[in-house]
């Protein structure tokens, strides 16, 4: 490894890019060639042979990859979670006991609960409100694009954006360059060091995730609202329902299923997110969440036992959602 490092260090960035792109071209061409070749060969086989070759070509690669790359690792993680840091000895439930007793990890679990409660609820609520307000607007395009835009950028990019908003100037003599600090100073005469302020900092990080997810909620909910039959809305209007009343008594009940889907999708995304915390505070100052702590345990502390246990706890949080979604999908299929 080290020899490769030294060798690479002599290369200029452009040489590295050129090398990487040659590998890229080779990989894409090889992949394309294999696919085309397999297809040409398979096409020539007899109709009878195709009856089983078709499974081999179409279904087997994906299924094999999922078995090796998702199912096997997931089971292996479960096993590792009952073993010690270096995966050499079984330690029973020790890693789980650790997770629920060490004060720092209890804070991690508490923060995660806070994220999972607040992000889906607030994003969906704001998303619903905007979707409703723009539902029959003449040109909602720009508004929707602006609110949806954070969905397109990375969590890392979003974290930089918000870290700048929260940035804090320790010296009294220099002006604030962070928007929030400047506003706070104008109003109160002083500004705290936002990201160090416990427990405010956790909420400030949660705001970033809400900022990202609201656009998703809005787009999906707006599409569902468009599907409400005009007659229903008109009937409510002829009854003299105010817009607010109509929102709660017509719109919400009509799109209930979609609201649930949006809530669950955001919940899963929130459980898994680690980029925001990692980039903004590194999980310090009591802002850590389970996905970030899992990464630190596994790849910083190199403790595969506790890292795996945290991954399993994360997964257990998601199981009810998977179960609910499958039931929903089943029902939908039988209706079809």
């Amino acid at each position: 490894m080290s020899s490769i490092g030294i060798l690479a260090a002599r290369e200029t960035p452009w040489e590295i890019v050129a090398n990487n792109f040659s590998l890229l071209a080779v990989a894409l061409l090889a992949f394309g060639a294999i696919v085309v070749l397999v297809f040409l060969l398979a096409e020539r086989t007899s109709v009878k042979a195709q009856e089983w070759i078709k499974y081999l070509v179409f279904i087997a690669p994906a299924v094999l990859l999922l078995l090796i790359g998702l199912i096997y690792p997931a089971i292996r993680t479960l096993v590792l979670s009952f073993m010690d840091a270096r995966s050499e000895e079984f330690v029973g439930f020790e890693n789980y006991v650790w997770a629920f007793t060490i004060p720092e990890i209890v804070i991690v679990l508490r923060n995660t609960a806070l994220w999972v409660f607040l992000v889906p609820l607030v994003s969906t609520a704001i998303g619903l409100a905007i979707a409703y307000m723009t539902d029959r607007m003449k040109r909602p395009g720009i508004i929707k694009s602006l609110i949806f835009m954070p969905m397109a950028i990375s969590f890392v990019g979003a974290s930089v954006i918000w870290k700048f908003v929260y940035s804090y100037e320790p010296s009294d003599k220099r002006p604030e360059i962070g928007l929030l600090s400047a506003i706070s100073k104008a109003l109160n005469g002083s500004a705290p060091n936002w990201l160090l302020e416990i427990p405010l900092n956790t909420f400030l990080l949660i705001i970033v995730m809400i900022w990202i997810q609201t656009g998703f909620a809005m787009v999906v909910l707006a599409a569902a609202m468009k599907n409400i039959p005009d007659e229903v809305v008109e009937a409510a209007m002829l009854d003299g329902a105010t817009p607010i009343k109509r929102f709660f008594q017509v719109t919400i009940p009509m799109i209930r299923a979609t609201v649930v889907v949006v809530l669950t999708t955001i919940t899963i995304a929130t459980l898994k997110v680690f980029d925001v915390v990692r980039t903004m505070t590194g999980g310090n100052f009591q802002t850590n969440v389970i996905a970030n702590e899992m990464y630190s345990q596994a790849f910083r502390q190199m403790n595969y036992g506790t890292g795996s246990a945290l991954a399993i706890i994360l997964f257990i949080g998601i199981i009810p959602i998977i179960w609910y979604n499958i039931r929903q999908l089943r029902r939908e299929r039988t209706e079809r």
Partner: protein
Amino acid sequence: MATLSMPTAKRKAKNIFSSPIASAAAWLIAIFWTIPTFGLLVSSIRPEQDINSSGWWTFFSAPNVSFENYQAVLFEGTTTNPPLFQFFFNSLAITLPAVVFPITLAVFAAYGLAWFEFKGRDFLFFSIFALQVVPLQLTLIPLLQLFSQGLKFGDVTVIPDLGITGTYIPVWIAHTIFGLPLAIFLLHNFLSQIPRELVEAARVDGAGWFKLFSKIILPLSIPAIASFAIFQFLWVWNDLLVGLTFGAGTKEIAPMTVRIAEMVGTRGSGWEVLTAGAFVSMIVPLIVFFTLQRYFVRGLLAGSVKG
């Protein structure tokens, strides 16, 4: 009466919803939502000294534009701290195969799941659907070991150590695996809606399963493939976790997100570098987003409203 009242009601509906209050409120939220990004963009084109000594909102009273920051962050660097443009191309080199591979495998699998009749088909489909929400965290440690040590059960070597650590290959494979469940699910939804008569007519004409795929199924599924491609592109381009786990040790292959996250972490990087760097990392997704928003939304809706 009914026919007469309908247009009026509709017009009324328009009037109520496009009431100035609702519009103003929606605009206000949209502007509020954009200010943080806008502030970063404005800062990125200010000279270093201005960024660190005054708020970006003061820019408008004394506009002072400079592209130094972009020049510095993109092209200045050392061998241990390579310039950002190298990471830009790394991201590109990671993303292209990580979009092409899963889509190819997924459109194959989706075709099989939608049109082959076999025992256990529904079970397989539901299993793949369920795999969508398996958190990546659950697979990282074993997958990393699999790439570095191969796969052994006792003394039996199932997969040997391929010596691919430190190259793009683990990153591509990992992204392919993680993208497959959603890709199969979305494409299956689409492919199963192709009219049965069309498929049966082709079969009667003597088209084998492979000809049927290349002549009829594939051309028809291009829009669905496009939708998912955008999805996967943004996902891979914006990913930090996979890049960090499978490619962070090696600067030659680490994606831009890893680099930016590193820059935020180090005390040395000032806002002049961070603002420009962050924007470089966002520019491609933003272009993709604003030009292909329609497809993106379509993919999003297929994935969530139906599921």
